[in-house]
């Protein structure tokens, strides 16, 4: 596939944005600037960015607890995301959702779910709407290797297949669910092998390679828009950091070796994309560095925005419960 220069640079920009957002989150979280947990996406940027690069604003995504990468990859705003982590009124959810529940309905980000597997049927529903209405939008569901064992996945893939829905299931196989290796919990070698049980294509992709993720997703999106039904894509990737901030009990190296971590870090998705971009003459090292620097700046501004945004007022507590309001008991 021949990828547009702009798209490559957009991917690079978004990947840097995620990386720098997450680095900042780790910094301000350890400085105690906000309290809730957060699950860094560092190391996995190519999966969400490659996948979302194949989508339009009118397409939908739904995600999970490891939640900052998906919305940024879909074009979400870092200022509203950061303000949400800070629990401020200018956050995406006015501070009500926090790290695990970013959403931006203006650009098809249906929201991240803290209950694993639980957003996948919801994504199926968006695709169902496309099918009923005869419209061309598609839907994309992110879930982890751990969540792939949830019953919700089985039901969702089966529904999508029998109804021939325009949805792409993206398994982010970072090989662990917290401390548990996927080899110990997934009965089959690759999650993507399960696609055959639903009569849909199952594609195993190098999740460190944004271009590979883009190409696989673009082709699945093409199928979906053409009415050829769902696909399952597994991006094989790795979480460079620990499972979550604020879950202090799990020490690095306790469930995976330093050697394994080091080896995977050598396959940093940003290095891989930059190498491709530079070697193909799409941009220079300096231009790549400038993109990185620009995102550092944006993240910095976003953090200032978050810090300066006010907290909600106690009287806001009852807002947003109901669309057609009722008296509170």
């Amino acid at each position: 596939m021949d990828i547009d220069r702009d798209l490559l640079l957009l991917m690079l920009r978004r990947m840097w944005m995620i990386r720098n957002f997450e680095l900042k989150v780790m910094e301000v979280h350890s400085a105690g600037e906000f309290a809730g947990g957060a699950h860094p996406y560092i190391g996995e940027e190519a999966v969400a960015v490659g996948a979302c690069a194949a989508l339009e604003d009118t397409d939908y995504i739904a995600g999970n607890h490891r939640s900052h990468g998906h919305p940024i990859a879909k074009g979400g705003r870092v200022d509203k995301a950061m303000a949400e982590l800070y629990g401020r009124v200018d956050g995406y959810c006015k501070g009500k959702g926090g790290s695990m529940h970013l959403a931006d309905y203006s650009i098809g980000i249906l929201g991240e779910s803290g209950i694993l597997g639980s957003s996948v049927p919801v994504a199926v529903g968006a695709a169902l709407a496309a099918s009923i209405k005869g419209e061309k939008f598609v839907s994309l569901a992110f879930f982890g290797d751990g969540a792939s064992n949830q019953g919700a996945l089985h039901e969702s893939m089966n529904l999508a297949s029998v109804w021939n829905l325009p949805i792409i299931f993206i398994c982010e196989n970072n090989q662990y669910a917290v401390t548990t290796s996927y080899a110990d919990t997934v009965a089959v070698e690759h999650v993507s092998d399960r696609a055959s049980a639903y009569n849909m294509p199952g594609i195993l992709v190098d999740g460190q390679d944004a271009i590979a993720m883009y190409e696989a997703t673009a082709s699945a999106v093409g199928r979906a828009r053409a009415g050829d039904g769902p696909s399952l894509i597994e991006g094989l990737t790795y979480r460079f950091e620990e499972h979550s901030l604020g879950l202090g009990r799990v020490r690095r190296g306790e469930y995976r070796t330093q050697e394994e971590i080091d080896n995977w870090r050598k396959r940093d998705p940003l290095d891989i994309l930059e190498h491709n971009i530079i070697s193909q003459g799409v941009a220079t090292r300096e231009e790549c560095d400038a993109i990185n620097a620009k995102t550092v700046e944006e993240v910095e501004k976003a953090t200032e925005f978050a810090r300066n945004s006010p907290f909600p007022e106690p009287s806001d507590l009852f807002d947003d419960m109901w669309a057609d309001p009722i008296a509170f008991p």
Partner: protein
Amino acid sequence: MAQTVFIEAINQAIIEEMRRDENVFIMGEDIRRSVYGATANLLSEFGEKRVLDTPLSENGFFGAAIGASLVGMRPIVETLTSFMWVGMDQLISQAAKMRYMFGGQATLPVVYRASMFYGGGSAAHHSDRSYPMFMNMPGIKVIVPSNPADMKGLLKSAVRDNDPCIVFEDGTLAGMRGEVPENEDLPGDELIVPFGQAEMVREGTDCTIVGVAGGVNIAASVSDQLAQEGISVEVIDPRTLVPFDKKTILNSVEKTGRLVITDPAHKVCSAASEIASIVAEEGFWSLQAPIQKVASEQVHIPYTPALEPHVYPDVEKVTAAVKRTLES
């Protein structure tokens, strides 16, 4: 006015709403052939795209309805209360919570029609009356019609409501006939029953009975029978439990001084418990006697007809409760 059977009232509401708005569609198990009776004639009129037979995957298709509703559809999902356990995660984690969690961005006009089969030998796995659990969890409107007209009017309101609704369809009423006004006789040419407005089913002065779903008919019978003994019993049907019209009930208790609640749910943490607690807090000074809850016994629903009826509230138990409250 036409005499209409409860289950036909459901069918009328669905057809009218599907005609009115092409974003309304319906999904469920074996609905195309209307196995449970409420979805007759839908397939022929609205076609396969809008009348979906689902695989046995409640969690999956409950969630699919949510997703569709988020992007502009208005799904109606047919199920049974007892199958809702399988799909509980989608109902609670997504339907109930999404809007608030996303700061108001998500709007979910999805309706679950949950039949409550009980009283007919369906045993423990098919006889749930689970609305109290959905009262506990904020985010879902809880609708409990007690007659064909309300069934129709409340279901139509549910379809138009922008929040998730569960309409609990009391199976003991499935064959009930009642007057459902013809559309042409109504203002606006249709029957809409708004949420949060209790109905005064009988007026009375000696005691108030609040009935829930099938409990309303029991309460009305008790009122009629006790009238013969010169006891004047007011009967109130809340019609929706979320939102809840506590004012009508508090006013009634102010008048009568006595409260009995009849609720087919299990009695612990039931709708009856909640209503009793509201009155014990906000209507305490009106009360002249202990509140009486008459709800289902805290056992599962036994299959045998020799035991099953003893679980539920009935005219006898409610009459005894009214008399207890009058004597104390």
